[in-house]
């Protein structure tokens, strides 16, 4: 894995992605210092163009767009990372069980996984949020619910190929319990591929969250990028900046995450390097 990170560090695009994300982290950490006020607070006249007293202008109600974007960054990261972690845990349990126990368990679990991969993901996520009523946690559940199948398939594949390896057979021969073999020996061995695929999932999760919030399914009490864009849509003709800047924030964030993910994929998954 160390050689992998050295390969990652030589990848200029991946380093660019890492730099973008570092800036984003700094922004999230420093937000309470730079903008101590609530982002929903009205701070100036409405529809001020960018460049004046407010760096990125103000929105229809006179809220500072820059402050809104800074708070939205936190929401996007929390939901993106939270949903991806939930998807990884659930996907690893399903895929791990299928790959370890094989037979009927595998057939049934993989059929279910394929089923969830077939149904239209975004509409399914919409439905879940609509049914659970919009909040940060229901968004996390909805995004995790459509993201876990790829992790499950990955972990199953890794487990199937690891199951035949000598060190796993040796453990089983020494009488190690299933749990010990799975958690101490097999899971650590597929960590690198899960990290690589999982990092790409964060980008997809952030895009999904933006789409949900844009359609009015974001948490109404939490500032998010999709929410700013959907609120600014009505005044697109007179105030282009309200929609433009949050979109650039989404684009840069997802681009940064994808570049890092590609870099990790190349560095940690030598088998996938050709793709």
């Amino acid at each position, binding site marked *: 894995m160390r050689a992998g990170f050295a390969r990652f560090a030589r990848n200029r695009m991946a380093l660019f992605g890492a730099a973008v994300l570092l800036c984003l982290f700094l922004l999230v950490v420093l937000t309470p210092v730079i903008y101590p006020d609530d982002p929903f607070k009205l701070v100036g006249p409405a529809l001020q163009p960018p460049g004046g007293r407010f760096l990125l202008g103000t929105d229809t109600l006179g809220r500072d767009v820059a402050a809104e974007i800074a708070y939205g960054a936190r929401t996007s990261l929390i939901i993106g990372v939270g949903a991806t972690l939930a998807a990884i845990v659930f996907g690893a349990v399903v895929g791990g069980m299928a790959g370890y126990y094989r037979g009927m368990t595998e057939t049934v679990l993989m059929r279910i996984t394929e089923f969830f991969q077939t149904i*239209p993901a975004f509409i399914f996520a*919409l*439905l879940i949020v609509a049914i659970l009523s919009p909040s940060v946690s229901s968004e996390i559940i909805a995004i995790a619910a459509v993201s876990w199948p790829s992790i499950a398939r990955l972990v199953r594949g890794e487990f199937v190929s690891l199951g035949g390896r000598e060190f796993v057979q040796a453990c089983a021969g020494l009488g190690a319990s299933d749990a010990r073999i799975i958690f101490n020996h097999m899971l650590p061995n597929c960590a690198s591929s899960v990290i690589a695929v999982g990092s790409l999932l964060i980008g997809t999760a952030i895009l999904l969250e*933006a789409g949900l919030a844009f359609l009015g399914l974001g948490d109404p009490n939490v500032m998010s990028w999709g929410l700013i864009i959907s609120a600014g849509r009505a005044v697109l003709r007179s105030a282009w900046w309200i929609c433009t800047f949050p979109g650039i924030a989404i*684009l840069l964030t997802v*681009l940064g995450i994808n570049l890092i993910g590609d870099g990790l994929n190349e560095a940690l998954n030598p088998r996938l390097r050709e793709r």
Partner: protein
Amino acid sequence: MRFARYVGYRLLTALPVICGIIVLNFLLIHLAPGDAASVLAGESGAATPEYMDELRHKFGLDQSLGMQFLTYVSNLAHFNLGYSYRNDADVSSLILERLGPTSLLMLTAFGTALALGIILGLVAATGRNSWRDNVISLISLVAYATPGFWLGLMMIVIFSIGLGWLPTSGFDTVGAGHEGWAEVWDIGRHLVMPAVSLALFYLALYARLMRASILEQTGMDYVTTARAKGQTERRIMTGHVLRNALLPVVTLAGVQAGNLIGGSIVVETVFGWPGIGTLAFNALQSRDLNLILAIFFISACLVVVINLAVDVIYFMLDPRMEI
């Protein structure tokens, strides 16, 4: 004979998926807060108590869960997806009436994305690591990270508000009374921006996949054989590599069909395109859950049908396919 057996086999494997969708839909109705009748009535609160009782009876909500499920399935089998109180119309006719504009948008976006994606992937792969390859890679990286709805809004700012070239929204110019080619031109002008917003992400995806697929194929033994026979590089590419490289792209394109439907919801909302996406958005605004459930059901079935079609086409194209 072999073909008929394959189609039969695929139909059989599609059946459990359809059943799964029905079960999932049924579970989602019951997961929603409150009585399922209020969900079916569109949680409108505007429904009269008599109407709610009628709904409860019609959908068998006063019966056991098992009976409820059977009633639900039989309703679906009769294409009875319920009634939208908000829209004052049958859900199935609401969806049918919007199917045309959505199909037009999706087919245009899908066709453009697939055709251009394949061409760009080919250009990138044949000039591996050249400037063309780098430019195409860069564009697809950016396209990958751009939310479709934001791209749509930015195009409106530039091409409609700024330059005044294209209309901001709608399906055609209301009251213009165009006919014949004038009407086609008018709809086409309205279609450009929604189709581009929807297509760009998939274009990037297919270009990337096509590039990888060609590079994988050029390492195969049959390419070396063809080269040893003295065939030109051009002939090797068009006659051998391209055909084999297309297969995984077509498969993925079929799998992605479901996501295209999801993407059309946000894009249609941005452009006021009068299709299923706008219908879904309005249903969300009024919390008309039953209508969204019906849209989910229809689009999930549509995905199954598309996958089936892709697999059958695949089977016809590739004689090596085993059942």
